[in-house]
């Protein structure tokens, strides 16, 4: 009954949570909601967890049953329509792994993106050449032999970058481990251009970069890269995104978000300030 689909958009996540909240407020169980739609409680659950798209005919039955006033139902239905529309990144569906399209929609919807990058320059700040080096070396199996695929992946990455200078640009705040500079990706020219790009980005008012130096020892996030998303809606929780070789995790449990935020907060206190980071980047550039 539920057609396979890619990761939900943030709009779908928000509306799904809202649907759950409305049902609970109305004092109905999932079973009762399911009976109204002639579906199982599990189907209701999948709708509320944004595992399936929100179907307008279902909403037209559920929302009145949840005592939602008529004008609010109209708004909800309009939002559901919007939320179901694919974002621009869907044009790159041939190169986007399923688990990644969710990431791009979160990036688009976020008001704040905080990340810890132990290995590479964050995708949003990579130069074309740096991105190409990473994507070429990082490609596995079939991808290795397909240069057009790499081209499209590079194009996708560059298209994502316009986000940082758009009118609704989010705050982008990254902690980069010193490794990011020390591990050369491509030739010194590639690295020099990349460091220039970082310096240039660090001048943007909405971008903050902090380097965690080797000399300062380890810090609570020394494990793996992660991203913390915050959305401009009070009810929507922050979300943690963790990528690994074959997939990604999206965490939004309070306890997990809290621990990642605490780790991130301690890392930003540990890492060098934004102004000293700019100095470190300039100094490093001179050694290349």
């Amino acid at each position, binding site marked *: 009954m539920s057609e396979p689909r890619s990761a939900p958009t943030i709009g779908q996540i928000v509306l799904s949570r809202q649907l759950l909240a409305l049902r609970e407020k109305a004092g109905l169980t999932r079973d009762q909601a399911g009976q109204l739609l002639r579906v199982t409680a599990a189907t209701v659950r999948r709708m509320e967890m944004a595992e399936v798209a929100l179907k307008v005919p279902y909403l037209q039955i559920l929302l009145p049953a949840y005592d939602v006033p008529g004008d609010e139902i109209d708004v909800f239905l309009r939002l559901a329509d919007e939320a179901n529309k694919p974002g621009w990144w869907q044009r790159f569906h041939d190169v986007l792994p399923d688990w990644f399209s969710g990431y791009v929609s979160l990036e688009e919807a976020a008001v*704040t993106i905080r990340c810890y990058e132990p290995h590479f320059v964050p995708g949003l700040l990579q130069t074309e050449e740096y991105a190409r080096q990473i994507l070429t070396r990082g490609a596995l199996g079939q991808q290795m032999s397909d240069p057009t695929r790499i081209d499209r992946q590079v194009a996708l990455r560059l298209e994502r970058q316009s986000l940082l200078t758009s009118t609704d640009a989010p*705050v982008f*705040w990254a902690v980069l481990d*010193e490794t990011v500079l020390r591990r050369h990706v491509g030739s010194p020219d590639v690295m020099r251009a990349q460091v220039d790009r970082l310096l240039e980005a660090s001048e943007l*008012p*909405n971008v*903050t970069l*902090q380097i965690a*130096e*080797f*000399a*300062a*020892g380890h810090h609570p996030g020394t494990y793996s890269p992660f991203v913390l998303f*915050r959305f401009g809606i*009070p009810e929507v*929780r*922050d979300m943690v995104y963790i990528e690994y070789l074959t997939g990604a995790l999206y965490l939004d449990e*309070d*306890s997990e978000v*809290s621990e990642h*935020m*605490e780790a991130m*907060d*301690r890392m*930003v*206190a*540990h890492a*060098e*300030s*934004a102004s000293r980071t700019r100095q*470190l980047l300039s*100094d*490093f550039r001179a050694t290349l």
Partner: protein
Amino acid sequence: MNAGTPKSQVDTSKPHPARVYDWLLGGKDNYPVDRAVGEQLPDLGKRSARQNRAFMHRASAWLAGQGVDQFLDIGTGIPTAPNLHQIVQEINPKARVVYTDNDPIVLRHAEALLFSSAEGATDYIEADVREPKAILDHARRHLDFDRPVAVSLIALMHFIPDSDGPYDITRTLLDALAPGSHLVLSHGTFDFHKELEAQITGTYGKGGIELRFRTRDEVARFFDGLDLVEPGLVTGPEWYKDTAAPEPEENAVYAGVARVS
């Protein structure tokens, strides 16, 4: 990249006043230990936090409207929009704001999130209000103390016990200011809610945060020797100048703005 700078110790296992305050304001930059404190406070806590913030908005906007274009905010806390620089730079884009906090995490948040208008400036000092001289030394690099500066101590001094000399601290700050400067201060009180004193002080105390709410007379002492601006020392929602009167609401905050002559 040699010799790392010594790092301040950051302890996130205990509640922190700035993060409890963030929670009270409905923010998301707090941890379970902070929420635990907030949840044990009466409703008055959230109400007072909101009223306190609203007072900061009104007072800062009024001062900017009066032509004050230099602000020294001590005990900045977790950014919550609109922040002081956003309020005053909307009125005067050239306004300069220096934010100060003693917590490195809080300060980094300020650095990352409180970015200035293109014409104005914001800067950040990691310093404790208990070291007013250090704050002044640093602030002088960014502000011209020969001209008026508005110093704000918003919901801060009630975390400074008598033994730390709160009045001397304020005096040191004020002595550095040129005529026409202002002190903007808000402070918790149990004057209207004696019955909640044990609960509120106890809740913070259990989290290791020493709370010293003060009486009206004790708060008034912070303004000794200054000219209190109308309406004087009042509760948060009672302080307004050229805006509509805020909805009167029960709260536990005294608020005042005074001029240095």
